[in-house]
């Protein structure tokens, strides 16, 4: 595998790009509320909680391994 695709090198970039994409998607006005609520059920809330936990940890500068 090429060096630029080494997982340890791309880890931060991938997380940054996915965070950026997630924030960008949050800012885009979406479909009517009913349809959004349908999308949220049943597994999405867990995803959302995981995402917010991840963002909060990043903002706090916490070391995820130690936690």
């Amino acid at each position, binding site marked *: *595998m*090429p060096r*630029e*695709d080494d*997982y*340890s090198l*791309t*880890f931060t*970039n*991938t*997380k940054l*790009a*996915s*965070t*950026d*994409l*997630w924030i*960008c*998607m*949050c*800012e*885009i*006005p*979406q*479909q009517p509320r009913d*349809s*959004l609520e349908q*999308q*949220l059920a049943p597994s*999405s809330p867990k*995803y*959302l909680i*995981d*995402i917010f936990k*991840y963002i909060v940890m990043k903002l706090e500068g916490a*070391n*995820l*391994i130690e936690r």
Partner: protein
Amino acid sequence: MFPALLQLGQVAMPSAAQLPNETIFLVCKCYWTGTHMDLTDSLRSNDLGWMSLFKDVLAYDDPDLNQKLHFKDKSSPESFYFRTRKVVTRILLKYYQKHANGKYHAVNEPYAAEWLAKYNETFLQQMYAQLTKPNLPKTQYFMMKMFSSLGYYRPQLIENYVGPLLFQITPGFLQMRPEDEQVA
């Protein structure tokens, strides 16, 4: 140079009878090297051939090769399979960020409107499909940047993808996995 390159690429296109090879990879790489700074007027006005080639590269899907993401041999078909896709994604990202982006420079706006009208939906569908398949990390990075770029530039064009990206694709990338903990 570009018409000859395009012909080479069309002949070398992977198919049922032809595995991904170095020629298609080099053709795409040459296109990237020759265009990432700027697009010539002739490439702007004759982009159908190249865009079709890129569309075919992204559409080519081999379930066997998909299993070989962690290849060791750079000259193997699986290496060219994943690396060609990466170069094509890099090229398309440049279109979304620069060549076909009026926000980057107002002078690009007329071409951006034309290019997005012709190709955007096809590439969005393909990129979205690729995000759910095995790909090199850099390829995934380029794809996500592409969606972000379009999201900030023309959000109305990706309305149909907002929900799936928000609830299905990005959470998968944001979740911490065992391999993440080793490098975080």
